């Protein structure tokens, strides 16, 4: 059985956070959906809380430090990405956005992405569609049709709301697994291995 990697980016701030809880459920469902397609999956979690200062430093210096570089490489080298943020002030959190700001703008091109978000009220739910989906569209990632939003009531709710969240998680994970399975294994192109020959640069003028 061939193996795929799923990177999970969680921008939750409390420990434990409902954002991480949703991220873990999405990751588990993703692993199961890939297994159903006869693909093994390894999950690598990037908790952005631990990189809050690294990200601020990157904004100032222009480069990621060693710790952040490892996190960036985890995400850019993965076969699929599960990205989960709390909704703050009607959109993804600043910490979440900063991580995607410091990636090379080509780094997620073609990458299957499953989006998730959490908030205290269901009235934030369309932030995924109005805020987060355009971010990944700009980065030319391939986002699953289903995005998963969980409000407090989804966690606390009775059987019906809880089952509805589980259904959304399962459906979204299935869509992600299908995208990952269709795609060749991720390979990160290194511009230093194969630079444009100078003749091409001259001819391109």
């Amino acid at each position, binding site marked *: 059985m061939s193996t795929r990697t799923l990177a999970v980016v969680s921008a939750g701030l409390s420990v434990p956070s409902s954002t991480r809880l949703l991220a873990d459920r999405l990751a588990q469902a993703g692993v199961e959906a890939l297994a159903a397609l006869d693909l093994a999956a390894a999950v690598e979690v990037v908790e952005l809380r631990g990189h809050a200062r690294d990200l*601020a*430093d990157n*904004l*100032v*210096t*222009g*480069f990621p*430090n*060693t710790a952040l570089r490892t996190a960036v490489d985890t995400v850019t080298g993965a076969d699929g990405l599960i990205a989960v943020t709390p909704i703050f002030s009607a959109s993804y959190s600043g910490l979440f956005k900063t991580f995607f700001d410091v990636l090379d703008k080509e780094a997620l091109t073609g990458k299957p992405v499953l989006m998730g978000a959490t908030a205290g009220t269901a009235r934030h739910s369309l932030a995924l569609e109005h805020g987060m989906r355009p971010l990944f569209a700009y980065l030319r990632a391939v986002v699953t049709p289903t995005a998963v939003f969980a409000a407090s009531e989804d966690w606390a709710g009775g059987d019906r709301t809880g089952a509805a969240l589980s259904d959304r998680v399962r459906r979204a994970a299935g869509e992600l697994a299908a995208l990952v399975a269709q795609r060749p294994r991720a390979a990160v192109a290194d*511009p*230093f291995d194969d*630079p*444009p*020959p*100078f003749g091409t*640069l*001259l001819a*391109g*003028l």
Partner: protein
Amino acid sequence: MQFGVFSVSDITTDPTTGRAPGEAERIRAVVTIAEKAEEVGLDVFALGEHHNPPFFSSSPTTTLGYIAARTQRLQLSTATTLITTNDPVKIAEDYAMLQHLAGGRVDLMLGRGNTGPVYPWFGQDIRDGIALAVENYALLHRLWREDVVDWQGRFRTPLQGFTSTPRPLDGVPPFVWHGSIRSPEIAEQAAYYGDGFFHNHIFWPKEHTRRMVGLYRRRFEHYGHGSADQAVVGLGGQVFMRRNSQDAVREFRPYFDDAPVYGRGPSLEEFMRETPLTVGSPQQVIDRTLGFRDYVGDYQRQLFLIDHAGLPLKTVLEQLDILGEEVVPVLRKEFAALKPAHVPDAPTHAGRVAAAGGARDATVHTTADTVTGRAGQEVQAR
């Protein structure tokens, strides 16, 4: 191997006193720093080019021409000359002129510049940065090697029968370094022409330097200029020294914390760990600098940034004393002992003239010259 200092010409408030020098004071200070560099036995002084405050150095050939007249031995260079927004014709003229006045003690480092607004001020578009660097240098390269140039390109008006004057001193153009932090195209350009490659080596982790230099060396060999370890490499670096490393850290920290570019970001300790910055004793600077060779190979030029972020002139001159007395003599000896014989020394005018088969007067006299009345002929070798 050559050792020297480079200045970006920033006029920055000293965070420990709240005082900022005026332009007149800072310009005189930079001349003093260059003179001091020669006095303490360094080889190179390089000056940046900027066209906006807080920098003064919009006209580096003026400053370098003045320094040339006040020094005897110092090699004068730039860090960097903007190949994107300067007219390559003007670069050819200005630096050939400087080369004559300085008796050949001139080379230059080309860069694209890192200040976005500069491009439109000079009628260019930052999105064309790489293309401008490629085309402008292709023209500059010809203007210094061909007496009469016909040219048509994307970025400037065509040239027909154009002769750039003065012709390079002794018929040998100034040596050119191409500087870039992370654009593989520029390493490729340096390799294609067999020119030098310089890495800033200050703002980014050494891993970027290693990859850029590695690419340049590989492609230098590919284009047939010699083996990869014969490619001509220069590095920047940033140091601050006191006899006791704790004193160096204590004194430099406020300048670091407020520095343009990286100030108010990572701590001094984090930045020292992630980049080549060394703040400590002269011995620590010696050890760290010798270590650069481990990831770029034997290289030809090491320049240090020592006069930025509001450091007062007195402190900068003390740093030069330490470099000249304690650091560079050891580095010279150690690097020389490690360098294999087939790896070239840093390029000099004398060496390049010898390689060209000797000096020649390259003056171009025009036909039907109504000013001098001389017939069209090139004065041949003296």
